[in-house]
């Protein structure tokens, strides 16, 4: 491909006019070729100005396609924008603001846009009709994934996603206002002004980068001056209002509950790369008391033979290219119209120096105004005529005009066909909360039906197409919205503008194009009138079925230019009005929204907040490998050089059992319970009795759910007669607090108790091992006695340490060793870790993580996550005796249901691998030695495993039918998922110091 160093001057740029800055040039590349445009151009308008007519290949048939539209509804001009990790497929060239250095590539063509070998699909077109995929690729099923789908995707892909991670930043934000105005055309500008004048907080959101809507595209006058200038003056007025906020380049893409609107602001899409620290896009949640939808209308194409030839264009788009962008889409034009719009179009084209060859007006009677225009332009006006078929390859070269029945056919040479078949109000946002658009026969369009709460519609979106109606309806809607939001209205002055004659007829497609060729309804999905006819014939007649069967209205444009034509044809075939046929459901987003914008800064590690313990930095310095436990990161193990997790874990366990180790247990939930009824309350919350606990003592606590199953466990410490500190498991901290709050607020509101989370206030370390008392004593301030006598097993005391830090010391053990938990205010957590490690160096102190903690608790037979799985009862876990029969508690009654006291329930059992070389995995099923591994023979499953150095083999805990009565017997631990089948010997669930002498010592 040759690439000229210096782009040629834009060949189709008008010498004057347009809203472009001719003093500056913008260089860009399309398919590798360098071009120039001006600030103010879109990629599409710059291509038009450079005479580029072919912009893509169609999705299914690979037909050459040009620009149909000039706005966000464009179905054909989809390009890959930018390169590398910033490559963005399916970008509408009409919505891309030109920037210096822009590169764009056409899609869906191979090997090049002009020479597309897959155009062969056109020849096979008869085979590719509606429902083609469903019919052809049915059999054999296995071929779908391996053969058919990749083939179809390659042939019919819509652009390529980038491979690398997106280098840009995105963010989300919330904005609040009294009145949200969507769209800044004549209606939107008036609505923002009248609302703004009341003092209401107004947000005016405009998709485009310039305010004005159709005022930019059409040659109109307001108050006797060019409408564009009026729009500029309005912008200045609005900008001067402190409570009016204008968001340009912002698409309101969805309406959500409670007056909430989704919008995406393209903060830096109009530059090559965002500036330093600038987000690329910002997703707004706009909360508005009222909204005024002024989204305008989209033009409806005419469906005729080969109407997809490049440069068969919507009339409004052609006017936009010449008036707003000073770009000439062709030299010889034929205007096909169904009403007065055609005259305005012919005038605009002629003023731009385009030779208008003929005007075909579908109306049978000659329009006097059109005749005047035709005479003035020296153009033929063919009343009662429609386009029958377009000719040409690459670009339209001629068009046949004639009567709708095909008679009177004449061919006109041209390089541009513009079509105007009325306007379809942009009602999408009115439907996002379920409102159905209503068919209006007079307007020949679906108009807004039931509106979302607080929304009003003005201007063309409400079917008021004429400029004067837009101004008036916008002005009143804005004022009403502000008034409804509680502001005092002032009189509305509506500027003068001429009434535009809207006389027209509507052309409904025929099942078969009269003039021959393929008549496209949905350009983006290659759906023709014949496809609609097939769907009708095959009984996919409901609009929702029609959509799924033919793909009408799918993909990025969601049928913006095609829905009405498709539905109108189906309605005609079914003998219904379009109103009876209805429309498919409009859902957010109105136009595609990058997922990155919705995620904002919450990506990667910041996807969700991470909770860190006060000594996290210390653990990181020690080389901890962290594991996620809910939102927390906890140290899993602390590997030394060359150690894998198991080696590190074994070393840590050995060090604790022989000396002393410390483990960060700050993540355990801590709930401060205070009040005269605290003891009574805890008796009701816990299955076991709490009220008999003396001050300065700790007790294990087991909590049931309402349904009688075990909820959580932890410790209860009595700090004072009316003051307790209870701990929960890390995972259930929030749930237990919620459970207690519920019980207090709803079940026993008269109890004089409060519960408050103290989890974040306290950093807490387990200090475990035979030398733990020595270590704790070294940290205690002078005069503090931590001897066995002063603080026996299950005792609690305040402890001043590190020279005055007010701590709490609990003598509790999860490991089975002599052990403590030492708590300090969180700001001292880091210091505590360092102090323990420093003071214990000669004692051989180690830091141990979750893995080592798990090994030791399995060896001790303490239930944890695998056993407290929400399906076990206290008796299942061997703690039936804990449930006090002397008092009531949450879950007591339900725990006595027959299925919960069934002696056949699987119950806690310990086991050890018979062969020391075998590994057992959690989740393995217990099966009798000689029984086949079937569901019927399933005896229960392994809940926890650990490598026990004391046992010299893998051991574990499990829940097994008759388990407690089968100690000493052998069963298989069968794991079909990992392909393991290991012989294990059942035993009591405690492998270390069953009498508990060590922890009491």
């Amino acid at each position, binding site marked *: 491909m040759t690439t000229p160093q210096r782009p040629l001057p834009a060949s189709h740029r008008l010498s004057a006019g347009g809203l472009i800055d001719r003093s500056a040039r913008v260089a860009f590349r399309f398919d590798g070729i360098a071009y120039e445009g001006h600030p103010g151009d879109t990629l599409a308008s710059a291509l038009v100005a450079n005479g580029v007519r072919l912009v893509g290949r169609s999705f299914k048939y690979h037909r050459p396609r040009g620009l149909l539209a000039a706005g966000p509804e464009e179905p054909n001009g989809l390009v890959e924008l930018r390169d590398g990790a910033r490559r963005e497929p399916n970008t509408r060239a009409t919505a891309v603001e030109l920037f210096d250095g822009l590169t764009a590539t056409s899609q869906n063509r191979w090997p090049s846009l002009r020479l597309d070998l897959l155009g062969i699909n056109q020849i096979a077109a008869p085979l590719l009709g509606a429902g083609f995929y469903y019919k052809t690729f049915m059999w054999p099923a296995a071929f779908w994934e391996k053969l058919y789908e990749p083939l179809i995707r390659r042939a019919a892909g819509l652009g390529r996603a980038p491979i690398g991670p997106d280098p840009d*930043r995105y*963010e*989300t*934000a*919330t*904005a*609040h206002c009294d009145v949200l105005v969507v769209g800044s055309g004549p209606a939107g500008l008036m609505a923002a002004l009248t609302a703004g004048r009341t003092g209401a*907080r107004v947000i005016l959101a405009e998709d485009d980068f310039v305010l004005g809507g159709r005022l930019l595209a059409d040659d109109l006058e307001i108050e006797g001056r060019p409408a564009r200038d009026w729009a500029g003056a309005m912008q200045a007025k609005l900008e001067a209002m402190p409570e009016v906020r204008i968001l340009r380049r912002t698409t309101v893409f969805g309406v959500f509950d409670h007056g909430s609107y989704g919008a995406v602001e393209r903060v830096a899409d109009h530059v090559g790369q965002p500036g*330093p*620290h*600038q*987000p690329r896009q910002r997703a707004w*949640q706009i*909360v508005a008391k009222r909204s005024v939808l002024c989204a305008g209308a989209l033009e409806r194409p005419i469906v005729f033979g080969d109407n997809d030839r490049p440069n068969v264009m919507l009339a409004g788009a052609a006017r936009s290219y010449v008036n707003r962008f000073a770009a000439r889409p062709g030299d010889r034009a034929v205007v096909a119209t169904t009403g007065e719009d055609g005259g305005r179009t012919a005038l605009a084209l002629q003023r731009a120096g385009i030779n208008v060859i003929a005007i075909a007006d579908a109306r049978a009677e000659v329009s006097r105004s059109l005749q005047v225009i035709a005479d003035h332009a020296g153009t033929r006006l063919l009343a009662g005529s429609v386009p029958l078929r377009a000719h040409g390859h690459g670009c339209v070269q001629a068009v046949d005009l004639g009567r709708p029945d095909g008679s009177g056919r004449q061919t006109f040479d041209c390089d541009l066909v513009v079509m105007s078949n009325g306007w379809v109000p942009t009602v999408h946002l009115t439907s996002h909360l379920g409102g159905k658009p209503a068919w209006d026969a007079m307007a020949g369009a679906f108009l807004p039906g039931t509106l979302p709460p607080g929304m009003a519609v003005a201007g063309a979106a409400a079917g008021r197409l004429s400029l004067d109606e837009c101004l008036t309806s916008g002005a009143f809607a804005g004022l009403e919205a502000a008034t409804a939001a509680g502001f005092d209205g002032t009189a509305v002055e509506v500027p003068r503008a001429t009434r535009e004659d809207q006389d027209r007829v509507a052309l409904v497609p025929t099942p078969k194009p009269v003039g021959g060729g393929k008549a496209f309804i949905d350009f983006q999905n290659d759906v023709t009138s014949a496809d609609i006819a097939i769907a009708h014939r095959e009984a996919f007649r409901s609009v929702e079925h029609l959509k799924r069967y033919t793909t009408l209205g799918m993909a990025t444009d969601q049928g913006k230019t095609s829905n009405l034509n498709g539905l109108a044809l189906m309605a005609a075939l079914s003998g219904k009005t379009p109103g009876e046929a209805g429309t498919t459901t409009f859902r957010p987003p109105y136009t595609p929204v990058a997922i990155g914008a919705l995620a*904002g*800064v*919450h990506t990667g590690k*910041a996807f*969700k*907040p*991470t*909770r*860190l*313990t*006060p000594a996290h*930095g210390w653990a990181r310095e020690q080389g901890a490998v962290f594991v996620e436990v809910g*939102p*927390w990161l906890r140290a899993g193990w602390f590997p030394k050089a060359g150690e894998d997790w198991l080696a590190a874990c074994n070393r840590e366990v050995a060090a604790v059992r022989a000396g002393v180790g410390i483990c960060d247990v700050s993540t355990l939930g801590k709930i*401060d319970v*205070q*009040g005269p009824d605290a003891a009574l309350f805890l008796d009701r919350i816990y299955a076991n009795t709490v009220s008999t606990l003396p001050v300065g003592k700790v007790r294990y606590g087991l909590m049931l759910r309402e349904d009688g199953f075990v909820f959580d466990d932890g410790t209860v410490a009595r700090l004072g007669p009316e003051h307790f500190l209870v701990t929960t498991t890390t995972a259930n901290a929030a749930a237990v607090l919620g459970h207690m709050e519920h019980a*207090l607020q709803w079940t026993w*509101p008269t*109890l*004089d*108790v*409060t519960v*408050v989370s*103290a*989890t*974040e*206030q*306290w*950093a807490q370390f387990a200090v475990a091992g035979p030398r733990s008392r020595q270590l704790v004593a*070294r940290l205690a301030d002078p005069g503090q006695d931590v001897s066995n006598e002063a603080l026996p097993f299950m005792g609690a005391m305040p402890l001043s340490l*590190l020279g*005055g*830090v*007010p701590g709490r010391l609990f003598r509790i053990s999860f490991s089975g060793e002599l052990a403590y938990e030492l708590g300090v*205010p*969180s*700001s*001292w*957590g*880091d*210091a505590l870790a*360092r*102090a323990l490690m*420093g*003071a214990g160096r000669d004692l051989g102190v180690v830091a141990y993580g979750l893995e080592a903690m798990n090994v030791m608790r399995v060896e001790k037979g303490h239930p944890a996550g695998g056993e407290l799985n929400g399906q076990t009862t206290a008796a299942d876990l061997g703690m039936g005796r804990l449930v006090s029969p002397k008092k009531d508690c949450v879950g007591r009654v339900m725990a006595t249901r027959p299925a919960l006291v069934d002696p056949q329930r699987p119950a806690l059992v310990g086991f050890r691998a018979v062969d020391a070389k075998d590994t057992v995995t959690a989740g393995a099923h217990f099966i009798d030695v000689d029984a086949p591994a079937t569901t019927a023979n399933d005896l229960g499953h392994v809940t926890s495993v650990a490598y026990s150095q004391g046992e010299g083999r893998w051991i574990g805990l499990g829940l097994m039918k008759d388990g407690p009565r089968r100690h000493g017997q052998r069963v298989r631990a069968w794991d079909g998922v990992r392909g393991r089948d290991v012989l294990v010997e059942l035993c009591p669930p405690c492998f270390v110091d069953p009498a508990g002498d060590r922890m009491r010592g």
Partner: protein
Amino acid sequence: MAEHITFSRRGAFAGLALPGRFGQAEGPAGLTVAVRTTVAIAQVVARPGRTDEVSSAVAAAMGLTLPAPLRVSAAGPVVAAWTGPGRWLVMQDEAGSGPYPAGSFVGRVAEACRGAASVTDQTDAQGVLRLSGPRTRDVLAKGLALDLHPRAFRAGMAASTLCGMVEVTLWQTDDTPTYDVAVMRGYAGSFWHWLGESAAEYGLVVAPQDDARAGAG
């Protein structure tokens, strides 16, 4: 025996809030952040049915009127923020009042409540930031769903809500505007990441910390 090491207190934002200018380097900074490391925080929870009693007891003992819902109140150095029905954070900046100030302040609040409320020390459970600067509202809008427009939220108002997906209690101290934000300690890192990202566009100044007790960084 233990070696002689001096241990230091580390606030929630220690190691995160390093003084300096970040993000956009040009022009005046949009946001200034000061870490309030010396705020003692007592959480007061009225016992069932005794909210009024707590209010009058605190007013009598400390001269502080506990604020109505969604409000803050102040009496001298003591500030109270409403966080829920019958719940307040009562705070005092204890800069320069010794190494372990919280206990005495929290004890004083507990005494003032005279058993009508449960009082817990939450000094270490929260990190408090003071946010000010011309773009403060714009920064907060990126993480906070509340309307901070002067017509909706003024000095003297408080909210317990989510900011940057993290639980916070936020109150406005003046109309410039300045906000204080108390962040759950464990989430300080995530909050700081969100704040830095959100303020980068406008430029962010982190003020030097006001007290040596903040420790290293």
